[in-house]
C-alpha cells in the first residue's frame, strides 16, 4: 500500500513537473495572499508581490540594478516643459488585457484618480505620497502633461510608483452603477477583477487563496516567459517546504533564515535571498507620560544589541543600519551618520539620570506573528532591556496600537515606498505625517524647516545636510529605532532560475522576461 502510494505520488509529481516545464507553468506557494488587487489603494507588503506582472507604469526602470536607471514604460519619452510641468509622449498601440487600446484618456484618468482622489482609500494614498501632484491633462491623442504644485525632484521615482500604474478608464467606470460615471463601487469591484497592460493577465483570483496569471499575448513588450503561474496561499512554512519537495510547487516565499540550512541540504532545492528594502523598526510613543523623557527612549534604543540578534537570528545576513538610510537612496545614502548604536553602559547611565523607577514598558507586537523573526526578536529585546534593568513585557495583539495613547513601544516596519529618504523615512515621519497625526511623535518649527529643505531643495548637498539634521534630532529624541534590513528568502526547485530584483520595492514577484527562467528537465 505504502509503495503504491509513493509510486503514485511520485509519478504524479514527476508528470506534473515535466508537464510544467514543457508548458512553462509554475506554482508558487506564498505565505501571504492579497484580499484584493488594486495597486492604487494597496501599499502593503502582501500586495506588492503581485502587481508588477499585471501592470505598467509610465516610466519603468532597470529593475536588475540598484541605482535607478529610468526606462520607457507606457511613456516613450518625457521632459520638463516648465518648473512644475512634465510632458510625456505615450506609447502607441498598447493593449489592455480586455482588448481595449490604451489612450491618453486612460492615462489621465489613471493619474487623476489618485491626484484628485474621490474614492476614500485613494485619498489616503494621495496624501501620504502623491501630495505634490496637482493634476494630469491630455494634450493630444499621444501626449499628456502632469502638473505638480511645487517644484519636484522625484519625478521619475514617483511616476514609477505602483499607485500610478495605468488602468483602463472605460472598463472601470462600467463595473458598477452608471457605466459613464466614476463611483466608489466601481473601484470596489475593480479590486476583484483588475485589468492592466502587463505581460500577464489575471486568469483567476480567489481573495486570500489563489491568484492565477496567464501570458497576455498582446503585450507591448517582450513576451512573458511563462504561460501560466498559479500562486497559492500556504501559511505554514513546513507545508510550503513540503510542497517544494513533493513537486507541488516550484517557488516558496517567506522562508526564515533558520530554514536555509535545510534547503541547502536538499539536492533538488535552492534558496535565493536579498535584504529587503525595508526596516523592521521599534516605534516609541514620545507622548506617553512615562516615555516623555528622551533619555528613557534613548536608553531603550542603546540597550538593544542588534548585531548579536543579527548573528543569532539572521545568521549574520541582515543589515544593521547605523542611521535611517539604505543603499537604494543612491547619492542620498548616508551610512556615515551614526544615529543608532549599542551602548548598554550609556543606557544604564541615562536610565539612572532619568530616574527610571522600574515601571513596566509594554512592547506591543502583531499577533499572529507577521514579520520574519518578529516574535524571537521581541523576546530577545525584552532580555536585552532586562540586562540594563528595564522591566519590559510583550503584548502580542492583532490590533494596530500606533494611534493608542497608551501605547509605549511597538514593532512595525518602515518599507521603502520609493528610492529616496522621502519615500521611506518621509512617508512616516514627515511633519503632520502619520506618526505625528497618530499622536506618538512631535515636530516643531525647526523640524519642519529642516524637513522643507530636505524634501524640496533642488541642491543635493542641501538635501543631505538637512537629512543629517533630521537624523541628529531623531538620535537625541528617538521616536523609533530601525532594527535591521531583514534578509528574506525564497526557496525554489533547482530548475527554476529566479531571484528578487534589486530595483523593486519589497517582495515583488517579478515573472517578466529576464526575471525568471525554467531549465529544461535534466
Amino acid at each position, binding site marked *: 500500500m505504502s509503495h503504491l502510494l509513493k509510486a503514485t505520488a511520485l509519478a504524479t509529481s514527476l508528470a506534473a513537473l515535466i508537464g510544467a516545464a514543457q508548458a512553462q507553468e509554475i506554482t508558487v506557494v506564498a505565505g501571504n495572499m492579497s*484580499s484584493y488587487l488594486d495597486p492604487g489603494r494597496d501599499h502593503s507588503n502582501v500586495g506588492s508581490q503581485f502587481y508588477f506582472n499585471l501592470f505598467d507604469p509610465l516610466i519603468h526602470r532597470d529593475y536588475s540594478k540598484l541605482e535607478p536607471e529610468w526606462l520607457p514604460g507606457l511613456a516613450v519619452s518625457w521632459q520638463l516643459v516648465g518648473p512644475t510641468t512634465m510632458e510625456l509622449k505615450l506609447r502607441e498601440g498598447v493593449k489592455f488585457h480586455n482588448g481595449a487600446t490604451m489612450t491618453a484618456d486612460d492615462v489621465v484618468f489613471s493619474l487623476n484618480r489618485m491626484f484628485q482622489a474621490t474614492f476614500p482609500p485613494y485619498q489616503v494614498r494621495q496624501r501620504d505620497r502623491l501630495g505634490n501632484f496637482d493634476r494630469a491633462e491630455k494634450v493630444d491623442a499621444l501626449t499628456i502633461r502632469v502638473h505638480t504644485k511645487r517644484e519636484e525632484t522625484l519625478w521619475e521615482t514617483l511616476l514609477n510608483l505602483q499607485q500610478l500604474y495605468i488602468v483602463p478608464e472605460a472598463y472601470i467606470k462600467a463595473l458598477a452603477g452608471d457605466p459613464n460615471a466614476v463611483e466608489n463601487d466601481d473601484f470596489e469591484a475593480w479590486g*476583484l477583477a483588475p485589468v492592466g497592460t502587463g505581460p500577464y493577465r489575471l486568469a483567476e483570483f480567489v*481573495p486570500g487563496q489563489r491568484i492565477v496569471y496567464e501570458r497576455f499575448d498582446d503585450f507591448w513588450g517582450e513576451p512573458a516567459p511563462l504561460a501560466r503561474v498559479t500562486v497559492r*496561499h500556504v501559511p505554514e512554512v513546513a507545508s510550503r517546504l513540503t510542497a517544494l519537495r513533493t513537486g507541488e510547487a516550484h517557488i516558496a516565499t517567506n522562508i526564515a533564515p533558520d530554514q536555509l540550512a535545510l534547503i541547502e541540504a536538499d539536492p533538488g532545492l535552492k534558496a535565493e535571498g536579498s535584504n529587503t528594502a525595508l526596516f523592521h523598526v521599534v516605534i516609541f510613543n514620545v507622548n506617553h507620560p512615562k516615555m516623555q523623557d528622551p533619555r528613557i527612549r534613548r536608553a531603550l534604543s542603546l540597550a538593544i544589541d542588534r548585531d548579536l540578534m543579527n548573528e543569532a537570528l539572521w545568521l549574520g545576513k541582515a543589515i544593521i543600519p547605523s542611521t535611517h538610510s539604505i543603499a537604494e537612496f543612491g547619492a542620498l545614502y548616508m551610512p556615515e551618520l551614526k544615529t543608532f548604536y549599542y551602548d548598554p553602559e550609556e543606557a544604564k547611565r541615562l536610565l539612572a539620570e532619568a530616574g527610571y523607577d522600574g515601571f513596566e514598558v509594554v512592547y506591543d507586537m502583531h499577533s499572529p506573528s507577521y514579520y520574519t523573526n518578529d516574535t524571537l526578536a521581541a523576546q530577545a529585546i525584552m532580555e536585552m532591556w532586562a540586562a540594563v534593568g528595564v522591566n519590559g513585557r510583550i503584548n502580542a495583539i492583532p*490590533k494596530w496600537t500606533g*494611534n493608542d495613547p497608551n501605547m509605549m513601544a511597538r514593532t512595525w516596519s518602515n518599507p521603502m515606498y520609493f528610492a529616496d529618504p522621502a519615500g521611506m523615512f518621509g512617508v512616516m515621519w514627515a511633519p503632520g505625517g502619520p506618526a505625528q497625526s497618530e499622536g506618538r511623535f512631535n515636530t516643531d518649527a525647526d523640524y519642519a524647516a529642516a524637513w522643507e529643505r530636505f524634501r524640496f531643495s533642488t541642491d543635493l548637498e542641501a538635501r543631505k545636510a538637512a537629512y543629517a539634521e533630521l537624523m541628529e534630532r531623531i538620535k537625541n529624541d528617538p521616536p523609533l529605532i530601525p532594527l535591521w534590513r531583514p534578509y528574506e528568502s525564497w526557496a525554489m526547485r533547482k530548475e527554476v532560475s529566479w531571484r528578487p530584483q534589486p530595483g523593486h520595492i519589497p517582495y515583488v514577484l517579478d515573472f517578466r522576461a529576464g526575471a525568471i527562467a525554467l531549465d529544461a528537465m535534466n
Partner: protein
Amino acid sequence: MLRYALRTLARMAVTFLVIVTLVFFATRISGNPLDFILADGLTSEDRAILIRYYELDRSWWHQYLAFLRGFWDGQFGLSFIERRPVGTIVLERLWPTAQLLLSAMALTLALALPLGILAAMHRDRWIGSAVMTLAFLGYAVPNFVLAVFLILIFAYWLNWLPVVGNATAWHFILPTLTLASGLVAALTRFTRNAMLDVLGQDFMRTARAKGLSERAVILRHGLRNAGITILSVVGLQVAGLAAAGSVVVESIFAWPGIGELLVRSAIRRDYPVLQFGVLTVAFAVIVINALIDLAYAWADPRLRQRGA
C-alpha cells in the same frame, strides 16, 4: 409530534438570535475594525475619511438594524477586507469544510462502531482494554500535534502525500486522518458505553433466550437500541469536536474552509464576514441538532408522548 416540532423550532430560533446578537455586539466592544484592517500609518484625517466610508461612524443600533434587515433583503454587506459580498465568501468555503467533515465522519463511523462494539463485547478481556487504551490515546493526542507530525513524516520526509489545499483525493488523506483521530476515539468510547447499557437490559436477555446467536443479538437488537444514544452523541459531541478540529486542521493544511475563515475574520475584525459566517455555522449546527432531536423523539416513543 407537531407541537414538539414547533417547540423545537421556536427554541432554535431563539438560540439562533441570541448567538447572532451576542457575536454582533461582542465584536464591537473590542474596538474599531479599522485598527485591525488598514490601520497602520494613517493620519487622523485619513482615518476619519475611512471610518465614514466604511460606515463605522454609525451607531451600533443602526448597524444592528442594518444587519437584521439582511434577513429580509438578503444583503449582508461587503467584506471590509475583500470587498466582496459576504455571502459569496462564506458559501465558497462551506463545501470544502463539508467535504472534510463528511470524509472524517465516514472514517469515524467505519472505525468507531466496530471498535466500540468489540470493546463492549470483550469488556473484561485484553482486547477490550486494548481498544479502549487506543481510544484514550487517540483522544489524548491533540489535533495539532498529530497534524504537525503527519506532515513531517508523510509529506516532508517520505514525500508520499501532498499537504497544500484540497485539489485531489490525495489531499484528503492527512487532514481526514488528523480530524478523525479524536472523533474515532470519542465515538468508540460512547459506542462501547451505549452498548454496555443495552447489553444489560431485559430485552437482550429475552433475545438471547430465544436462541439467537450472540452476534445476531448484538447486531440486530443491541446496535439498534444503542443507536439512538450514539446518534445523539454524533450530533452533539462529535459535531462540537469536529467544528473545533476543523479550525485547527484547516489552518494547518491550508484548507479553504469556513473554520479558517472565521478565525481569520475574527482576528482581523472583518465584521460582515464574521457575522454572516457565525450565522451560517450556528444555523447549520442548530438545524443538525434539531434534526437529531426529532429523530430521537421519533425513535423514542416516551419522548414523543411527553411532547404531545
